[in-house]
């Protein structure tokens, strides 16, 4: 019942966002497309790291596998998108095994470092090995696009984000979702109480890679180009992590909020501070947000919600 009430809010959100193109300019829609892709990546991070506590510092590794798979298939072989995108998703899920194996032996900071190392390795390899195929440091440009224009891409990215969001949100409300978060709380206890934590982790890693794969492939075709510096990059990693964390890790709704906040903040500053000051202010606001609300906006809104609810009952 509670789930149904909350689903009503997803509906309000969905309808509101679908009406948005009637009100705002195409420039804003373009920004929102970036926010929605960031939200997909942040949710992918969240289902792995926010839920199970295995913090990934190498998420661009997964996104890059997806992006490069579909980019190389379409660019060199002319493979149609309806084939290359699923292939990219499968490749990403296979690639996530590189994350999963270390997760069997390490956790916490150590796991974070391995994932970071994988990202760096792929960053180097993409440039060194077979630059004819990957485009080397310049990457590949002129990839086929799915659809053109701000409004169609807005609906496409929103639709994908919305479906993934609702799906993951429902999932974490099931017993499976609860089981995943017991890994974060205390993995040993979860195992001794009879849960197969290895299987659970594998599931979380695969699901995360699945989402990252869809996001990465669609993002690459939205941009129409891919370059190692744009993907395997600390600042890309930074946006994914921070979107999830200042939105509220482990909640799925939080990363969506975080992604909209971060992207809109940076673009909102552009007309006023076009130069390098923009990134200083952006970084400082992010730091303050994380400093004062490490549990994220989701938590703040949650508390506000309860207050309002209490207010409503009193009346």
């Amino acid at each position: 019942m509670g789930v149904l009430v909350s689903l009503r809010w997803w509906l309000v959100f969905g309808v509101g966002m679908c009406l948005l193109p009637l009100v705002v300019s195409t420039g804003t829609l373009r920004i929102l497309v970036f926010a929605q892709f960031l939200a997909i990546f942040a949710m992918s991070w969240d289902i792995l790291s926010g839920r199970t506590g295995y913090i990934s510092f190498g998420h661009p590794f997964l996104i890059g596998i997806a992006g490069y798979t579909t980019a190389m298939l379409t660019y060199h072989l002319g493979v149609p998108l309806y084939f290359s995108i699923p292939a990219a998703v499968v490749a990403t899920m296979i690639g996530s095994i590189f994350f999963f194996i270390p997760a069997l032996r390490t956790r916490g900071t150590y796991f974070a470092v391995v994932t970071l190392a994988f990202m760096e390795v792929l960053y180097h390899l993409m440039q060194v090995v077979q630059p004819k195929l990957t485009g080397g440091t310049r990457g590949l440009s002129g990839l086929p696009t799915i659809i053109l224009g701000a409004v169609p891409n807005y609906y496409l990215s929103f639709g994908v984000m919305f479906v993934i969001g609702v799906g993951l949100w429902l999932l974490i409300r099931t017993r499976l979702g609860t089981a995943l978060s017991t890994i974060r709380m205390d993995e040993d206890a979860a195992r001794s109480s009879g849960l197969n934590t290895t299987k659970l982790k594998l599931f979380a890693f695969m699901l995360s890679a699945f989402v990252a794969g869809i996001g990465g492939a669609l993002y690459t075709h939205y941009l129409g180009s891919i370059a190692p510096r744009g993907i395997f990059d600390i600042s890309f990693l930074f946006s994914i992590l921070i979107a999830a964390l200042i939105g509220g890790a482990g909640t799925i709704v939080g990363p969506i909020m975080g992604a909209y906040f971060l992207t809109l903040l940076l673009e909102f500053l552009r007309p006023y501070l076009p130069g390098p000051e923009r990134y200083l202010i952006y970084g400082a606001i992010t730091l303050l947000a994380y400093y004062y609300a490490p549990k994220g906006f989701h938590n703040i809104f949650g508390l506000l919600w309860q207050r309002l609810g209490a207010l409503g009952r009193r009346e």
Partner: protein
Amino acid sequence: MKIKFALKAFLAAAVIMSAYTIAAPASADEDPVVVGFIGSFDSDVGKSTLRGAEIAIEELNEAGGVLGGRQIKLVKADTREDVAEGIKAYEYLNEVEKVDFIVSGSIDDVSLGWLPRMTEYRTPTLDTWTSFIGIIDKVVEDYDKYKMYFMNVANDYALAMLYVDFGKDILAKKMQWKTVVVLQEDTAFGGGVFELIDQLLAPEAKIEIVDHIVYDVNTVDFAPIYSKAVQATPDFIYLISSVRSQVPSSQYVKLQVPLPMTGINVAALGMEFWGDTGGMGGGLSTLSPIPSIGIDMDDRSKAMLAKYQAKHGDNRPVVPHFNGFNAYFGIYNAFAAAERAGGFAPLDKWVTEMENSDTKIYKDGELWLRYAYWKPGEIEPRTEREYTHNIKFDITPPYEDGAPSMVVIQWYTDGSVKVVYPEKYANGDFSVPPWVK
């Protein structure tokens, strides 16, 4: 329960409305012609393009405006030399600022990043920094899709061709050098240039490549790399470096590597090289697209430089890099084409007129610089290939059809810089560092 829902709905509406208000600022009135600048705001390269474009636009505005007295408005979008930011910046210029024309000071992967957006918006775009032949090839192969793109700097291929001539005339003939070790950064630019050098240096200049070392751009210590080069006992080292170029050049000086070194060294393209290396760059030389620092200038370029320096004083770069001049003259060409075509739209008309641009700049009666573009189907005689929408360069001496694709500039130990090749532009002599015998 109902009140609670209403309250929550109100809150949700408030959140959504606040998102609505963070919409982009309302676009300005339709009157001015809007030019967009895309590039990094704080790098020397980005600033050169931006300031060159600004000066041209101020001059055009002061002269009574363009297209029937309309003023030009310049809007800027920062890329931070980041690929994704570059795409956002390109979108911003088109969707929010509704620009008529874009001038870009972007590096290779950033230009390649926004290129798909350019083909979508079909906004006339003039690039002044990237020299990647792959972009020109796209224009050649798919003209209709990419025809709004013009590159106002000679491409890598043309640069390398002239560099081989430099090898033949100076390195082989004058210096009597016969063997070389190529030190190449591991980037697509480095790989592309090496391929050409590898094909041409031995047959054309009779200089043999005895070793080829590819290094990682984040290398901390170049001592092992220079040791390896020295062990191959070549006559000189050829450096190809466009990223973090100060590291190999300053370590070359600190280690006093006993071999001459020349090549492509992007750090040495600006007047700041001397100060940035702490006065350690003497004896180094690099190729530079035209017009380089140290070159003798024609009157128009001199006037532009005087304005630039009056405006920016000590603020770096004190002399714009080549792309500053290319942006300045490129803007003039673009607006002259727009006057003839009646505006930037329809695109085809403007593109045709832009292709007809031919700004010839003379110095002492000699053709010194030329801002024209290769037309579709036009074949460059020496390389026997097309360079549609690349700046019209001339890579055959005596360079009567245009400026050469590049010159070689030489830094001296007293901190001065001169052009040493080709002869027509030379005002100094090729030299090697004092510790090299």
